[in-house]
């Protein structure tokens, strides 16, 4: 994340001056768009748009992102953000695995399962590197774009292009060695899968705590918020742990409403594929886009794609949150090095996400919570890639 993860408030509450015009426009969109989507597609799709809106507001007000959190762990040895991420995944896990295991027959849903193979290993490492250069992961890119970051708009554009390139090459990558899908819920049983997943998540959190204590002597204190109550709810910042739990709840809501967990980057590839197809690139003939659900998504309205509609909601939700916080579209310099990093990072993330079946949300969050082993492989590979990316930032003149 390019904006501070800690969301450290000043001792004196900053004077608030919400961007009234933006607040009015985005609020009007949140009133009208669900009605339009419900009429054009389905009420379910409108609900998913609103869930996306809540996710966007939560992500922005919590400055909740993987990129900054991982970088902070590596550079400053502060693991508060990573522990919040682990808590988020854990909270979703205790609902996802039983539901996906069929213990709640009323809910028909499928998990974010994907094969464990070379494509995930390479793709996730590319993604991890890219997210440090691009300045945000999948969800991070969306909410910072919503917040009005011109740099992240560049990252998003090349994220989409990279995802399209990844879709062109994915069939070849899938010919490389793989052990197939490993569903812990089936392998270990529902209780075993939950216990194993929680144990690993807890172990990661514990390691961050040990490293932080060793470096600083104590865990970081959560700063007191600059405002409380309703003012804090509307204008932020929201507590990191609270946002993590809220995102877990919203992912669970997505599972129940959409029938599958939250994902982000499929929509990016779809947008680029539609644009390329409209320009006559013949994307519809590519193996990836010529088959099954992908072909249907390409040939259908973008409003029928769950991921896209939720992404739209996230962007607008973040825009509303940023405007309410008086921080929409901040003035910021965009040096050439940083712009180039955004381009390279976006391409790497897009390509890597397609190879590895998602980003921090679709693969790590939803994958691990679904009990898919590929989520853990993704986590490890992306973190290693992120270590390289943190060093590579210097090449582009970034801290």
């Amino acid at each position, binding site marked *: 994340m390019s904006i501070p993860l800690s969301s450290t408030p000043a001792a004196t509450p900053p004077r608030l001056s919400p961007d009234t015009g933006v607040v009015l426009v985005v609020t009007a969109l949140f009133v009208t768009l669900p009605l339009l989507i419900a009429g054009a597609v389905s009420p379910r799709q409108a609900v998913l748009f609103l869930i996306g809106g809540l996710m966007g507001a939560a992500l922005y007000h919590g400055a909740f992102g993987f990129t900054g959190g991982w970088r902070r762990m590596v550079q400053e040895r502060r693991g508060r953000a990573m522990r919040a991420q682990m808590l988020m995944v854990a909270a979703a896990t205790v609902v996802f695995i039983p539901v996906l295991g069929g213990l709640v027959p009323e809910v*028909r849903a499928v998990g974010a399962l994907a094969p464990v193979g070379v494509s995930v290993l390479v793709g996730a490492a590319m993604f991890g590197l890219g997210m440090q250069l691009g300045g945000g992961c999948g969800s991070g890119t969306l909410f910072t774009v919503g917040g*009005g970051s011109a740099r992240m708009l560049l990252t998003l554009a090349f994220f989409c292009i990279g995802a399209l390139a990844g879709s062109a090459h994915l069939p070849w990558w899938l010919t490389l060695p793989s052990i197939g*899908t490993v569903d812990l819920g089936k392998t270990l049983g529902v209780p075993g899968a939950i216990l194993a997943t929680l144990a690993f998540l807890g172990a990661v959190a514990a390691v961050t705590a040990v490293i932080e204590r060793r470096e600083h002597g104590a865990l970081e204190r959560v700063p007191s918020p600059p405002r409380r109550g309703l003012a804090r709810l509307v204008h932020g910042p929201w507590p990191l742990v609270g946002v993590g739990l809220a995102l877990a709840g919203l992912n669970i809501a997505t599972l129940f409403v959409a029938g*599958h967990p939250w994902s982000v980057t499929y929509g990016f590839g779809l947008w680029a594929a539609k644009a390329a197809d409209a320009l006559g690139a013949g994307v519809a003939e590519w193996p990836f886009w010529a088959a099954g*659900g992908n072909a249907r998504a390409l040939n259908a309205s973008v409003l029928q794609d769950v991921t896209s509609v939720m992404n739209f909601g996230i962007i607008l939700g973040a825009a509303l949150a940023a405007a309410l916080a008086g921080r*929409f*579209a901040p003035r910021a310099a965009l040096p050439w090095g940083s712009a180039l990093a955004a381009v390279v990072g976006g391409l790497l993330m897009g390509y890597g996400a397609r190879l590895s079946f998602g980003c921090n949300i679709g693969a790590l969050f939803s994958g691990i919570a679904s009990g898919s082993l590929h989520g853990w492989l993704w986590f490890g590979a992306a973190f290693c890639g992120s270590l390289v990316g943190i060093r590579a930032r210097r090449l582009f003149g970034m801290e």
Partner: protein
Amino acid sequence: MSDKRNTFLFGAALAVAGAAVAADHLARSPQPATAPQPVAAAPAANPCAANPCSAAPCSANPCAAVPAAANPCSVAPCSASPCSAVPAAAAPCSVAPCSVAPCSVAPCSVAPCSVAPCSVAPCSVAPCSVGG
């Protein structure tokens, strides 16, 4: 603090994106049929009279044996697997749509995520017996 130039840039980007979404929706939404054919009237004996691998695969109804089940090419294809008895068991819209066998639970044995989706025989006499 907000910057008016950046706000204007994002307003323009929002307008362009909105126009693109609207254009895509209008271009890709199915037109209302003038004389809709009742799905139940589909010839169950030959459910795959149309070719699901044709340029217009959605004109086929591989589920015609259970004609009322659903249309796999409906406006909300991801809501479920229309062909299976346990609709949600398939994951046509998961983050890794091709990693699962969307039709493993049952009837629509087409492999929509395979590189060569037409290599299976969804239109065989026993379409559901082909492994998905």
